């Protein structure tokens, strides 16, 4: 009688012994911290259910210039992987201590092809500026061939961490690669159509876009949510004598007063969002597709 009662319990125990480890490993998720939204998107696409990707920068802050506090740095320190953009992005990473072996510099594969920006002041004992784009251009993902290489770096890092999931990561990466290559193809076609048509850009973040897709862009230091002062408008007037651009590329929706003033100068506005942080609507892919659509206006 006793053996009859204990048999089901024993059977349940044996089943649990075999299934529990599976449940634990199936639930095992890598914690990944990133420094910008494009990398977050790539990691989420490739990692799928096996990763938990975190971009701690607040949604209303430019992650390139955001600085985390000690608690957040400690969260980065405990992450399974820290995905970095490289190219000098997120300068705070150079002043904190992060585990080198868990860091992935996604632009390492093309570090020799990075665009270096000449600044007005060189350094013997100190350049300065509250906000400087001096050094290296860091919006590497705007060149979709580079974006693909960055995604590949993430893929390789994930496979190293979870080799058992290589098949899934590979399928996901191929899908993402396909999407990025499609974007690359579309922009290449636009670049050909535009054939060195001059553009202005509100902010010096389009170096890789210009290089890859053969676009002729002169960049200002404007913010979309600020009306440039008289000196800046004057400067634009002077440049436009030689650089006869009819389009200004903005990183975000500009003020209507700025658009109006530009229109009076014969310059139209289009938005090409770099998507550094998580968009309010959509995702990286939809934002880039919208950017491409906006760029098409230049020749339609």
């Amino acid at each position: 009688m006793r053996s009859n009662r204990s048999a089901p319990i024993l059977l349940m125990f044996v089943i649990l012994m075999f299934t529990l480890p599976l449940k634990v490993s199936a639930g095992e998720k890598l914690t990944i911290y990133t420094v910008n939204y494009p990398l977050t998107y790539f990691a989420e696409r490739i990692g799928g259910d096996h990763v938990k990707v975190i971009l701690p920068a607040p949604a209303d802050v430019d992650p390139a210039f955001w600085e985390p506090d000690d608690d957040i740095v400690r969260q980065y320190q405990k992450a399974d992987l820290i995905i970095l953009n490289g190219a000098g992005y997120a300068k705070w990473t150079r002043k904190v201590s992060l585990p080198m072996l868990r860091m992935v510099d996604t632009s390492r594969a093309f570090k020799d092809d990075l665009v270096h920006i000449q600044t007005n002041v060189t350094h013997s004992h100190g350049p300065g500026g509250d906000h400087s784009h001096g050094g290296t251009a860091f919006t590497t993902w705007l060149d979709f061939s580079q974006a693909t290489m960055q995604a590949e770096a993430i893929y390789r890092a994930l496979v190293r961490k979870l080799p058992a999931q290589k098949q899934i990561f590979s399928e996901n990466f191929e899908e993402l690669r396909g999407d990025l290559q499609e974007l690359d193809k579309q922009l290449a076609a636009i670049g050909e159509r535009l054939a060195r048509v001059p553009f202005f850009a509100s902010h010096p973040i389009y170096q890789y876009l210009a290089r890859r897709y053969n676009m002729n862009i002169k960049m200002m230091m404007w913010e979309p949510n600020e009306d440039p002062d008289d000196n800046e408008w004057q400067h634009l007037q002077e440049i436009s004598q030689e650089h006869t651009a009819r389009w200004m590329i903005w990183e975000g929706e500009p003020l209507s007063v700025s658009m109006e003033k530009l229109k009076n100068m014969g310059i139209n506005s289009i938005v090409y969002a770099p998507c550094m942080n998580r968009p309010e609507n959509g995702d990286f892919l939809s934002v880039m597709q919208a950017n491409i659509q906006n760029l098409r206006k230049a020749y339609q």
Partner: protein
Amino acid sequence: MMDSLYLAWRYLVYNKKKTFILVCCITIIAALPLALEVLLNESERQLALRAKSSPLLIGAKGSALDLVMNSLYFGDEVPETITMAATDQVMDTGLAAPIPLYVRFKSRGFPIVGTTLDYFDFRSLELAQGDMFTMLGQCIIGAEVARELALKPGDFVVSSPETLFDIAGVYPLKMKITGVLAPSHNADDLAVFADIQTAWVIQGLGHGHKDVTRTTDSSVILKKEESNVTANAKLMQYTEITKDNIDSFHLHGDAINFPLTAVLALPYDEKAGTILQGRYLEKEMPYQIVRPKEVIDTLMANIFKIRNVLDAVILFVGSATLLALVLVFSLSLRLREREIDVIFKLGCSRATIVKLLGAELFIIILISAGVCAGLLAFVHYYDQSLVRSLFI
């Protein structure tokens, strides 16, 4: 038997000085070689364990022993430096994970180990108090450092200047302690750990100061051009990195050329380790790669030879001491001839007299054994710290 023991005990108590000397001599003869054996075994264990757990070490060509002693045990001899490029080189092979080390500076006699956070994962070091350092200019300390200097998280340590008369040298760096490691009973207990970049700041390869392009103090400016500002030596450099001035800290030059004393290479598997070693055997390679275990095994073999000599010396000295003791005992018997004669005339048989003398010897040996055991227990209990302070 008890009667003999009682009489022997009373005799020994009455002749305290003689008993004490005899006990000391026998204790020393017995304890010395055994204690030495314990300490040497412990030092061998500590050295071997640490070496075994460190797969490969890359450094400048030269003394492999100096490289291993500096990198694993934070010894005083600083080997020739290599550059951070060696770390990248290992990373690029895809065969091993590199951990850079820069062990050159000291703080109040304790070595400052500049490294990355991976070191603590690799050595399985846990924090007993506080948190890991998060920014440049912070550090964590080993358990022994905290105990000897009575330091805790929130306190500060200052890097020591390398020479007293270095007028053109760098300022010492004041580092905030953010955490204290749990005891690990090895060289990590006696070190101050900081980020590798902090070590470079200590060297003077990085520093912080006021923004010279905006300063109103013209006396610090040597030359001002449209595209460049040169400051003079009057420009004060910060001696502590804080949240307020960290933005001004910068490294001069490319970090890839900055110095390291070694790179710990952790191969992904045995085959990768062998391939990696093979790559560093080429003559053109500016670095050497060593297996710390092999270096330490060679060192142990040499120490073993010395130990044999020590054992022989102790044996010789011990034998001489034993002979001296035998002489003392026999002389003592001669001096007690009248006493033994009285005991005999009182009716004790020769066997009883032998038992009495034997009981004295037995008690002396028993006491010596007890003291010896106590000494050995003490040595065994403190063997790790004794080895660290005496040998390593």
